[in-house]
């Protein structure tokens, strides 16, 4: 087992379970704010940022230069509870164990694209993953006397510097290829400060540098009102480095597909959907099986042009977790958009609640089956995007 995996498990044990944040982080805003409002349907998104994820889609951008920018902020709320039992073993309720609420600014991305005739190019930067988590708790003894304060802070992000090229082979079929160089750092700090000066405080800090490359290829086909795209991406050469010790991460191929449907009605409605599947059961850390599951997800959304030319959007996303079924999560999204001349301004709000018990995730501390700490958390994210066609 590599140091990264070992470090992860140590952190999991210390923090009582933060699985995703100790893997490759929370996915960032990979497409436009409009796509974020439509269930994060990045693979069905037509924007310079999304063209980095789905290279063929850059051929669907307007002729000439176009640019897009996104940024977001997130509010994380986490509550941990413990079940209370009566003497017969019946559950009376759940008592709060800790409650934390944090506010994180999250960079989104900026990208430019150029389309001329059958050729299209795009390049840009995106924060593909973020690590943001703060936890603190006052530790009491059985008589409610404070004995220590526990704090955990995880921060950092992965930067994705990407480019893509697309060409239109036939009138309705385009192909694209691209890639990204990904680099970033995750910093974790865990501290327990005891009130009793005779007890030594615990202080653990781990910085992990992560880097790698992602290669991508895709195609898009226009079938009248329906447009379908599909593609694959393959991470290669991923490494994690802790204290100058390198660990190889073998990450799997991911297949993606997207759909855009323009029904043609008075509301100028647009329906979009995307789907992805990743063979994450083959993830290895220093050639050791990471014991993950294959994962998949889908998103869908619809936009309508409301009276006054404001665009209203709503969507839903479901992602299965490679770590445990209990960590599968759904996200509700909504947003508004306005188009003025060549500018378009979009705002999106997403809300993602999740609830899981520690026993449901392998490697975390637990008491007995079905009798553990319960984690209820939610992330509310506000994303703003600006795009312009030149």
């Amino acid at each position, binding site marked *: 087992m590599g140091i990264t995996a070992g470090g992860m498990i140590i952190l999991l044990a210390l923090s009582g379970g933060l699985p995703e944040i100790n893997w490759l982080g929370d996915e960032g805003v990979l497409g436009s704010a409009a796509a974020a409002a439509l269930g994060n349907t990045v693979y069905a998104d037509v924007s310079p940022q999304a063209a980095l994820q789905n290279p063929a889609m850059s051929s669907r951008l307007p002729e000439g230069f176009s640019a897009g920018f996104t940024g977001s902020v997130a509010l994380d709320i986490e509550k941990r509870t413990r079940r209370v039992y009566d003497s017969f073993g019946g559950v009376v309720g759940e008592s709060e164990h800790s409650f934390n609420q944090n506010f994180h600014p999250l960079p989104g991305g900026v990208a430019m694209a150029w389309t001329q005739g059958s050729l299209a190019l795009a390049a840009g930067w995106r924060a593909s993953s973020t690590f943001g988590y703060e936890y603190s708790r006052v530790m009491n003894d059985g008589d409610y006397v404070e004995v220590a304060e526990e704090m955990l802070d995880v921060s950092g992000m992965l930067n994705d510097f990407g480019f893509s090229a697309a060409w239109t082979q036939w009138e309705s079929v385009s192909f694209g290829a691209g890639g990204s160089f990904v680099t970033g750092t995750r910093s974790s700090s865990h501290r327990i400060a005891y009130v009793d000066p005779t007890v030594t405080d615990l202080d653990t800090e781990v910085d992990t540098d992560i880097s790698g490359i992602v290669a991508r290829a895709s195609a898009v086909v226009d079938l009248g009102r329906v447009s379908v795209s599909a593609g694959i991406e393959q991470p290669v050469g991923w490494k994690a480095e802790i204290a100058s010790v390198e660990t190889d991460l073998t990450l799997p191929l991911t297949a993606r597909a997207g759909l855009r449907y323009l029904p043609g009605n008075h509301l100028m*409605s647009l329906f979009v959907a995307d789907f992805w599947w990743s063979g994450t059961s083959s993830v290895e850390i220093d050639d050791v099986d990471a014991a993950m599951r294959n994962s998949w997800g889908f998103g869908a959304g619809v936009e309508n042009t409301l009276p006054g030319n404001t665009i209203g959007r709503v969507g*839903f996303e479901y992602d299965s977790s490679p770590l445990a079924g209990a960590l*599968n999560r759904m996200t509700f999204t909504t947003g508004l958009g306005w188009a003025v001349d060549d500018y378009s301004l979009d705002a999106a709000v997403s809300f993602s609640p999740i609830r899981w018990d520690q026993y449901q995730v392998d490697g975390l501390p637990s008491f007995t089956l079905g009798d553990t700490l319960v984690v209820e958390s939610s992330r509310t994210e506000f994303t703003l995007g600006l795009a312009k066609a030149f």
Partner: protein
Amino acid sequence: MLFSLLLASMLAAVPPGFDLNSASYEELYSLEGLTSEQAVVLYEYIQGTGGLENIYEVLELPDFTPVTLGWLRENTIVLPPAEPEISSDVLNVMERLAQEDGPGDAAVEYWEDLLLRPMPINQISWWDLRSLDRVSFIDAASVDARLRSLGPVSSVSSLRSTENLRYYGYRNMRDYISTREPDYSATDFYGSYRFIYDDNEGRSGIDDGVEGHLSELKSAITDILAGGRELSSTSIDSLELITRLQSEYSQLLDSRDVTGFSHRIRVGAGDRYRAGARLSRGVNTIAGSNLIAGLDAPVNDRFDVGKVYFSFQDDGFVRQVVAGNYRLSLAQGLLIDNSDELMYRNTYRTWGLTPDLTSSRQNALLGGATQMEAGPLLGYAFGSFTPRDAITNLDGSPNVLYQGVFRPEEYSDVLDETTYGGYAFYDMGDYLPVGTAIGVGALGIQYSDSLNPTMAGMDIPTDTYTWDCPEYAYMPAGDKMSYIAASAQTVYRNMSAEMEAVRQDNGAWASITTANWQNNWLNVSASYRNYALDFMNPYNRAFSEQHRFDDTVFEKPYRLNDPLASQLADLPVPKPEEGLYMETRFQVSQQVTFTKVYLDVWRNLAYDTENLRFQGEVEYRPVWPVRFRLKYKFQDKINNKEIVPSNSRTQEFTLRTFSLPVGGDYFSMELRYGNVELTPNPLYGDDRSMCGGFLAMRWEHEFSPELSVLGGSTFWTTDGMSQWEFEDTGIDFLDGDGTKFYVTLKNTLSDNLQLRFKFVRKDTFFPHNGFYRPDPDDQYHYQGNPDETVTDFGDHVTDYGIRCQFDIRW
């Protein structure tokens, strides 16, 4: 002059009758009167909106000038875009029918079908019309009489003047019927696919949901292991019981994160052939219970309901044949209605044979059924072979039939059931009033194993409770049952009478008689029912006040060897009862209507206890867009207890208002207060009064007929009395104190695609204070650490729910 010449040259370039709405991008691009930018803008606008309504609409597009308009007007035409054919009613019908004492899932699916392919009114009789929602027997017979005496109608609206047909009945049937002629030789292919995703994050169902059952199972396991409960008669039985409980506990844990979803596909060719299939799984259900017996495939783990059917319609004496899953509901539902639901106090029921793709499982019939009609004779014959769930005794033999959301493998598909029967009706409408008919029916049920309802399999041997459940004592035993039925019905002007009586092979009887009188302003109905204690037909869904196991030991899981057996309380079979039900609707004036007033006086035949329930609702409509409704409900029930019966008196007051403030907006508000008084019990203290109430608001805004957004919020507080309310598509139970809001979006994108999306957040607070426990061995404690006692804590439950529905049609 120069302009005229130029115009003439342009005209030559555009073919006559050039339709902008159907033009391709290249064709628009080649128009000399448009710039390339204008062609792009116009093409995208036409694609996005479905087409121009008229040529003047182009002036709303950027860079389009009156000169451009003039050129387009001279050289092109605009054929209006096709109007959508799919009525948005398909989405609305689910909401309209989701109401208190509503008709249930099976009927709603059938009505949805009819919205898309209505009944041909000139080809049908009152038999068919009786399957419609809120269309009375008198309404149906009066339309049939009109068609028999005056011949076919050319429009549905012609029926409006039919004698004895209420406007209310006409309004409720008009969307489901049309004057189209069925074409049995046509083979036009059509179909639909529906996907529903249903999920909730949180501690769903504190009492009856997965958390409640987990708690009860854990409590039973802990109690047994701690020696606090005497086990069953032998150590082998004891081992069997604890193994079973632990297995069920483990299965329920796995079901905690199970989301609900369903795939349903239906296809048809012309008016003759139809087929469909369904695969689904409910929220928090236990699957992996042999969806298809003997099949070793992943599908058995992913779904818990699988259905399929093929149906054939004919205009000969065979009216319909259904192979696969079907639903049959005939007469008063006393002999046969194979729904999984028992609708309380429902005097309307779906009549007839329909394919079945509903979520019902335990009572689903799988085999073949046919409907035949020859002159005045109408007949139904059916046969089915399908597995059934049952609670099992510790020796593995089936105890009683079981219907529960949570189906542990120990109870799933325990035995096979062979069901067969028929019902024949003789229509005497040719020489007696139309609607008059008599019928006889028979039903046989055979099981692959003998049912053996022994109390020892249920009762905890040495607890303080003495087993007393007559409803259970008369549950079917053995491997076969049979029933015969007789029915009669007639209509005279605006009066009707119907009856059905069924005799079981053990000699037990059940009967129900209903009479109705109606006009446009007043409707009075009365129903007398008598279901003997030893009468138990698993397909009986006749009118009733209670389920068979309501107010019995099966509502108390802690009194059962296996707490999961408490789901027997949901068995959708009427309680043995004798009762008289009277109901009226009276429109006093344009402003004042008594919408529903009823009185039900019934005797629980298991204990001979008298009960009463009254409800009255009056509506006041000061101006057309505003309505107020005041409802009062009173129920007096006596429950049998070991020494003296206890009594519960429930009162409920509800004030509702509905208004249509502007355009497509709809606003409603509901205020409710209820209380229950119970017979004091020294064991629990003298305070046996419980109460609760809520305030709910709902607002729907329609942006266009294709898009509407509905938002609702509810605030509630309870003191022991749970509350319930209807959201837009279902019932919700409210415990503790709390708040809730939900948003629903309905979007008809095109003839081919509709979607419905709902999001709910529900916060419930359960204060737990002052847990002083004098006995050191009887303390509340934290999980995993019995020594860490708890005296006060607040429990805050947050639930998030989502329901997405996609409908694709072609």
